């Protein structure tokens, strides 16, 4: 296996933490080779933000994502920039709470879910949209096992927020699986 995953959005959405959790789950708990990198601007909030994870069964030479298999976009800006950069046969997961103009790309699947909206209403806190997104991502792609994700989430989120974050993950996971089922049986 060799998969490149790009998580993109704006600063403050927690995407770098999301990348870290995904990498830790796949690497430390699922036992794959992983690398997580990031790119960010000077703004702590509001600027473009991008976290990337490579998961492989072999040693990973080059740490940067060059041709992603899976792309998460959580802002229109990120969608415009990265929405079309996906491998043939790849998957784009779009948070359509924040994205109105969807990517048009041939040879890749576009899955939409109102991730931020789900965080706000179904989980109760918009701040956990990143973990809802992780759940959805796993639900849609099986990129990591839910068990490993749970371990990584519990080791990385602030003390006292474990329950909230696990709720966010599980809600996202369920919605991701539903979306996948819907996508696969049109």
């Amino acid at each position: 296996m060799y998969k490149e995953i790009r998580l993109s959005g704006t600063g403050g959405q927690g995407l770098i933490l999301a990348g870290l959790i995904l990498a830790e789950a796949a690497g430390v708990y699922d036992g794959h080779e992983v690398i997580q990198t990031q790119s960010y601007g000077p703004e702590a909030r509001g600027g473009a933000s991008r976290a990337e994870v490579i998961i492989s069964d072999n040693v990973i030479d080059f740490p940067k994502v060059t041709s992603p298999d899976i792309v998460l976009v959580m802002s229109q800006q990120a969608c415009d920039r990265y929405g079309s950069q996906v491998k043939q046969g790849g998957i784009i997961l779009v948070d359509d709470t924040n994205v109105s103009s969807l990517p048009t790309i041939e040879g890749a699947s576009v899955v939409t879910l109102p991730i931020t909206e789900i965080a706000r209403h179904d989980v109760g806190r918009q701040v956990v949209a990143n973990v809802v997104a992780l759940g959805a991502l796993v639900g849609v792609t099986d990129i990591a096992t839910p068990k490993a994700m749970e371990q990584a989430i519990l080791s990385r989120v602030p003390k006292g927020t474990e329950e909230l974050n696990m709720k966010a993950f599980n809600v996202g996971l369920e919605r991701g699986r539903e979306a996948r089922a819907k996508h696969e049986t049109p």
Partner: protein
Amino acid sequence: MHSKTDTRLMQGNEACAEGAIAAGMRFFAGYPITPSTEIAEELAALLPKVGGKFLQMEDEIASISAVIGASLTGAKSMTATSGPGFSLKQESIGFAAIAEIPCVIVNVMRAGPSTGVPTAPSQADVMQARWGTHGDHPVVVLCPTSVAETYTLIVEAFNISERWRIPVIFLMDEVIAHMREKVTIPDSSQLRIVDRARPTCKPEDYLPFDADAGDGVVPPMADFGTGYRYHLTGLTHDKTGFPTGKRPEVDTLIRRLYSKMDKAKQEVTFVDEVLIEDADVAVFAYGITARAGAKAVRDARAEGISAGLVRTKTLWPFPDEHVERIASTVRAIVVPEMNMGQLVHEVERASKGKTKVVSLTRVDAEPISPDEILSALKEV
């Protein structure tokens, strides 16, 4: 420390901080600067747990100065910075070189000059790391290519600094510093830890800069506050440590200090050769660029090109012997660097005209990709 298991997802800067502690580092002084700040943040939390001390100083110069002061008491000491801060620290690095005070200076390279692109990678401080401070001086410069290697190589940085009483520059780049990889932390019993030689003579017999009291190159060093009562200065000095302007004594001092580069060379040269034996063309690279080089070489082999990789973790002293030997067996050496071409000049010099040396540069604050190197390998 986030997990109790030995295998962890670790950031480069985190590995740098924890490796330094494993090396015995107990004093850190620094100043916030992107992209090195996580090292300071990590050490602010970790050092007091091992009885060490962390200080955020008022500026970059104060940081390196406090580090040198702390080292004089016998404590292994370190600072970390990036381009602008590295420029500011240069004068005191020269002081550490002439007064022979062990210390490690981490520079996480970012795109410059000046403020440049603070959050983006670069490899453009290679020459500054060697020649940033004025005057002829010895300095060892190490450069890791992975997070795991950051952990073990920073330990070597301290070992070299202690053994040779020289400042060691630890050059990281923003990608290595910020990326996270799975690291299996070596057990402390697996690490070789070197401490500086201390005098065994009576205080009244101590000549602090008498190299003959040591191995002929490095004099034993007394900790301040242990009764040796000696003098240190940034002026050229004689064996007693007191200033001298006498020409033969100045000459002797500078030549002895400089000779550390040659004497230490074998011990401090860390070079990996990958698929070099049968290689027709070679990539010579360091830091993040060596990772792209590894992929390019793999891809080239898949396409039938006999490519090999020379990955150097020691930039200075430059590994002349490795390069000369390889230059005599390959048709060309491609030197990719995230600068306008710095170490390529050393590769050319060390190749002595025995092979074609090709510079591949990139200065748009993005890492060189494996494809760019592959193209260069196809062209040569």
